């Protein structure tokens, strides 16, 4: 079954202004979200957002959860974080270092036309237009926990493509051991880059087995709509068992390499941020504890789960590794 997600262009423009989304969420959700679920993976049941979800205040309906249970990789019975919080509380230093900055400043980013450069050890290198890049793939909805290294967390319904599907099409050679991602550099579009808070471009990487893991998603949307700029439009990485900073945003380049890349935060403070950055309550950040976290919208802290609760799926990737050393 083909998965359809309405593009913004398919929605009446009166329905896509942020104010409208904010004030009229129920209608927006009903009108604009028609996501089907891949027959092969999940069974052919259409996924309709429950109305209550529109406010971000309620649990998903039983029907939605049933689909998810079969997949066994989604968190259950966890309230989704409100659309407003997901889109106004962001770490995206390209648009400023305060959490509110990206939502205020990211309108200057132009996400079309957008080119993704593929290079390195790969059979199909080249400059791909974003739409050509996405079009061959079905879009899936995945509800994931997102744990920031700063000890707060969210639950976000992403829309995207399993990264493995993308990589298979690009055909990396046997020399490709890692994938490196880069964010756009453009001081005009990304005003935060006028100061060298981080050495631009933002760089992240995954080991090939991590990149090919079925949980790893290349997201192009959330809450059933195209990604807002402040969340990393037009395309960003989502690796739910790792700290949020691995989820590089507004990607313009994917390079297949042999050696482990040096990712931005590790470059900045190697004793504080690692390459793997797996969520791990037993390995503290030197300046704060990672044992607990604050779920956005909740008052009390909650315990942080090993691999952010995805241990059953991903722990085997790291057997025999000392996670205190490879944090």
């Amino acid at each position: 079954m083909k998965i359809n997600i309405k593009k913004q262009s398919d929605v009446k423009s009166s329905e896509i202004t942020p104010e409208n989304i904010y004030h009229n969420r129920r209608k927006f959700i009903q009108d604009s979200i028609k996501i089907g679920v891949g027959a092969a993976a999940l069974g052919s049941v259409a996924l309709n957002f429950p109305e209550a979800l529109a406010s971000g205040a309620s649990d998903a309906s039983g029907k939605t959860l049933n689909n998810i249970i079969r997949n066994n990789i989604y968190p259950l019975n966890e309230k989704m974080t409100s659309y407003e919080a997901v889109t106004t509380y962001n770490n995206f230093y390209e648009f400023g270092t305060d959490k509110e900055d990206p939502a205020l400043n990211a309108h200057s980013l132009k996400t079309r036309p957008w080119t993704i450069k593929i290079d390195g050890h790969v059979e199909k290198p080249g400059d791909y237009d974003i739409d050509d890049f996405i079009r061959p793939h079905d879009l899936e909805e995945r509800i994931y926990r997102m744990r920031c290294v700063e000890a707060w967390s969210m639950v976000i319904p992403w829309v995207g493509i399993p990264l493995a599907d993308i990589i298979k099409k690009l055909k990396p050679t046997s020399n490709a051991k890692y994938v490196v991602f880069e964010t756009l550099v453009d001081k005009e579009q990304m005003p935060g880059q006028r100061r060298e808070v981080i050495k631009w471009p933002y760089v992240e990487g995954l080991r090939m087995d991590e990149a090919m893991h079925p949980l790893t998603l290349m997201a192009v949307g959330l809450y059933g709509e195209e990604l807002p700029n402040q969340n990393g439009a037009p395309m960003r990485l989502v690796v739910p068992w790792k700290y949020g900073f691995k989820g590089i945003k507004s990607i313009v380049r994917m390079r297949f390499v042999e050696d482990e890349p040096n990712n931005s935060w590790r470059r900045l403070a190697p004793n504080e941020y690692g390459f793997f950055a797996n969520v791990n309550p037993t390995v503290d950040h030197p300046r704060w504890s990672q044992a607990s976290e604050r779920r956005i919208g909740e008052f009390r802290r909650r315990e942080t789960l090993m691999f952010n609760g995805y241990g059953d799926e991903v722990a085997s990737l790291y057997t025999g590794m000392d996670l205190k050393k490879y944090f």
Partner: protein
Amino acid sequence: MKRIIYLKILVHIVALLPFCWLSWQGYLLMNDQSNELTANPIQFIHHFTGNWAIRFILLGLAITPLRKIFGWNRLIQFRRMIGLYAFFYVTLHLSNFVILDYYFDWAAILKEIIKRPAITFGMVAILLLIPLAITSTKGWIRRLQKNWIKLHKLIYGIGILAVIHNIMMVKADIFMPMIHITLLALLLGYRFAFRERQA
């Protein structure tokens, strides 16, 4: 005399404005109305109260240089107030940590204070502020005489601890803490230079 009272009231009002604003925003939050506290109000309050605490500490340290440079001797009458407001915002900052952030989870709180040097520095700074706040009354000034001046020199150390705490707590953007450090260096440097010249 009258004028001083009016001025003092004015300073009180200005010094309480950040707190009033924060309370107002908190009220909006509790009533589910849109507010400025972001999606993570507790972290916002950490930053807000910490920054106001440090501003008042720096302002308190600025009184003497301003008096000397511009001859505004009256300023001395506001120093105690400003010091007490520094203590007030620091207390809010610590209360936020203990109550809202860790909700009286004393084991976790103690562990953070002991294990994280940045928090340790902040805690020492707060503890050192307590005797200054207690002895800020006229009675104590009279009782301690010369020792009062000596005791209140602690504020230099507190300022240093506070800016160290500040820069260590920040993730990558050290712009604001660098401004605080620069101001502190200027204020302490001025005192040092001035003392040399007098000698």
